[in-house]
């Protein structure tokens, strides 16, 4: 892999090449992962993306999938943050990590530009030191590393607003006129947008151009009825003109592929990935109705997370996007709604 990475992310995609790579990768995983073979014992070849095998995103909470093939060296486990009890685990390998890093950097440069600036991360540096494991939050932050001239962690000792090192922020604002800041959406809201910014820091921030980047979902903000416009406005209120806010959607189970929100409100699929929307009751692909998003990419060599059926709802949108990007695009509609379990058993 992959000649597809050689061109800009939103240049026209060659479906034949991508399908060929996905077929080869599917066979690679079927040969190297017996459990995957049990799920898809009869797969031979797909003639279209919809025929490719996939794993439901939930299986990654149940089992640490691993493909044993020559040249694959598994390094560490990527764990999602979980609000529902169990976390997904994805085994990362050297080769895939390199490709995934190239992929996310290329996508982010398309949205943020190529300029480097100090990267501020709303996390604690200790999270980087855990042996053998890395969190989804840290992985998302480190996807911005190629755009960073320096790296700084702003939380010291905890996850709450009071642990944010405003002193460090002030120091960086004095030294630089442009900063790049990443945080999980909810963290950015509670520590920065709603945080008690010291007045002297606020003065400095208003002279600093900040590109805010966030990911991690809107569930908590929806619960307190904060809209995207309110979120963005709160962040930009304490930043210099020319500052921006970028939201991207991604999964640990599709590490390396992220979907920034474009100016027209859509998510664009890079040429080295593919997205389908499936009907939950039939799994038939849908061209415009909303359904379950299936995300695919040929970068995952160490475990079969190259084709994942998610419980996120979306709909494909045809035609040329006003933002100018080419290729597939979709509208992200949110997590699948759930209902309370009914019955007397303790399941």
């Amino acid at each position, binding site marked *: 892999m992959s000649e597809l990475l050689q061109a800009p992310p939103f240049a026209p995609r060659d479906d034949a090449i991508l399908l060929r790579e996905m077929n080869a990768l599917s066979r690679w995983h079927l040969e190297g992962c017996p*459990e995957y073979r*049990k*799920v898809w014992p009869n797969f031979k070849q797909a003639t279209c993306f919809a025929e490719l095998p996939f*794993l*439901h995103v*939930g*299986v990654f909470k*149940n*089992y640490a999938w691993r493909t044993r093939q020559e040249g694959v060296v598994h390094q560490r486990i990527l764990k999602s943050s979980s609000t529902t009890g169990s976390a997904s685990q994805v085994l990362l390998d050297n080769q895939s990590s390199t490709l995934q890093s190239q992929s996310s950097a290329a996508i982010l440069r398309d949205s943020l530009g190529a300029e480097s600036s100090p990267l501020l991360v709303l996390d604690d540096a200790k999270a980087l030191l855990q042996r053998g494991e890395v969190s989804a939050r840290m992985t998302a932050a480190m996807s911005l590393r190629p755009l960073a001239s320096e790296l700084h962690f702003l939380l010291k000792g905890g996850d709450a607003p009071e642990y944010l090192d405003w002193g460090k922020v002030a120091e960086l604002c004095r030294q630089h006129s442009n900063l790049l800041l990443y945080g999980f959406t909810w963290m950015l809201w509670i520590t920065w947008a709603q945080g008690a910014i010291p007045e002297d820091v606020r003065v400095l921030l208003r002279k600093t151009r900040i590109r805010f980047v966030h990911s991690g979902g809107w569930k908590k903000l929806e619960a307190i009825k904060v809209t995207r416009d309110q979120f963005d406005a709160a962040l930009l209120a304490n930043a210099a003109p020319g500052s921006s806010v970028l939201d991207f959607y991604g999964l640990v189970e599709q590490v390396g592929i992220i979907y920034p929100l474009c100016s027209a409100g859509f998510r664009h699929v890079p040429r080295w990935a593919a997205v389908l929307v499936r009907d*939950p*009751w*039939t*799994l038939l692909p849908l061209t415009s109705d909303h359904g*379950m998003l299936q995300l695919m990419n040929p970068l995952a060599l160490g475990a079969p997370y190259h084709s994942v*059926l998610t*419980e996120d709802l979306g709909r494909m949108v045809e035609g040329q996007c006003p933002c100018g990007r080419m290729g597939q695009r979709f509208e992200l509609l949110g997590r*699948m*709604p*759930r*209902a*309370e*379990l*009914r*019955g*007397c*058993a*303790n*399941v």
Partner: protein
Amino acid sequence: MSDAIQPFGTNFAALGYDLEARLDAWDALRAKMVRTLPETFTRDEWAYLIGFVAKPHLTAILERTFKSERPHGGACSLFRARGPLAIWLPSNISLLGPLVMVLASFTGMPIRIKAGSKSPDLCAPFIAYLLEYISTEELRGYLQNQVKIERFDRQDPRNAEMAAEASVRIAFGSDAAVAAIHALPHPPNSIGIHFGDHRSEAWLDAAAVDDASLLTLIKVFMIYGQAGCTSPRRILLLGGSNQDAETLCNRMSGLWSQAVKRDIPMHVASSNILYSQINKVQGWKIHMQERHGAIIGVGALDLPELAGPMSIAIIPARLEQAIASLPANIQTIGYQLKDAHALLPAIARTNIKRFVPIAQMHHFGPVWDGQNFFRLLFEEVDLQ
């Protein structure tokens, strides 16, 4: 309270109200219930409640509990309510709460009900419905003044109040949760009734199964899937082979769309996709039903349990294997057998609490979890 004494054969029950009028009041409610469906209830739950409060049904329960025909001059019994009741409802959404409340109301005693603090329950909306639609002053007055439902957590001091005041404590939940309730200080002559976590399964003879019984089995399963304590979590095909199990699965799949007419919610369909994959890894042969409505897994007793809220396993087994593999908390066996009574000696050696035709698996009654709990709400006075 009146001094009404109700005869039941040669026994008597001191109920303190006009029983016929009370039964008529419940029955009259049904005409209104069939025209409404409160949004908290599913169609199946509401339909079951409509059947439950019918006069013949409630009368049969009362007669099963109290009636006796003793020879003239022989001993007989007078049943009288023990006293106030305290009910701790399950933490999940279960029809057992309203059903127990309906039966408990026949004691004529005050009832204090604790609903779960974190999840919705069906008791409160049912009582609200009753207060709006019951036309009989006597029953409405009883429900309004004597039946109280509150929502608080396990640490709330009202738990202790309830235990201290009640002559009967009825607790739903895990063994640990129920033990904690019954450990609360309580009157020395009070009693505790436990409805714990149980599971159920279906036993079939391949030769005794026809399309009608399979349609019933599918419908019974689909009401709650694995979430119902009376739902068949697995089907044991007694004396059958692997091929018989596959054949049974194919027959059920062929009948599925006749039995299940509505789509399941999207997240359940998604969950079935997920568990079809998990179960394949575990070695099950998975048959996904139409529109991802459920999973049937064909396999053997030595496989890990089939996972998923709408999954049901078909496993061939000899009778002795079926008995040996029963879970400790088995409740109901729903059967479709050539000769069910021939299994009585085997059942006597197990913990099985109910052995009923498949169609009756969800039928709640006064005998539950191995005891006539309804009779326990009353003292029995020996009359000579």
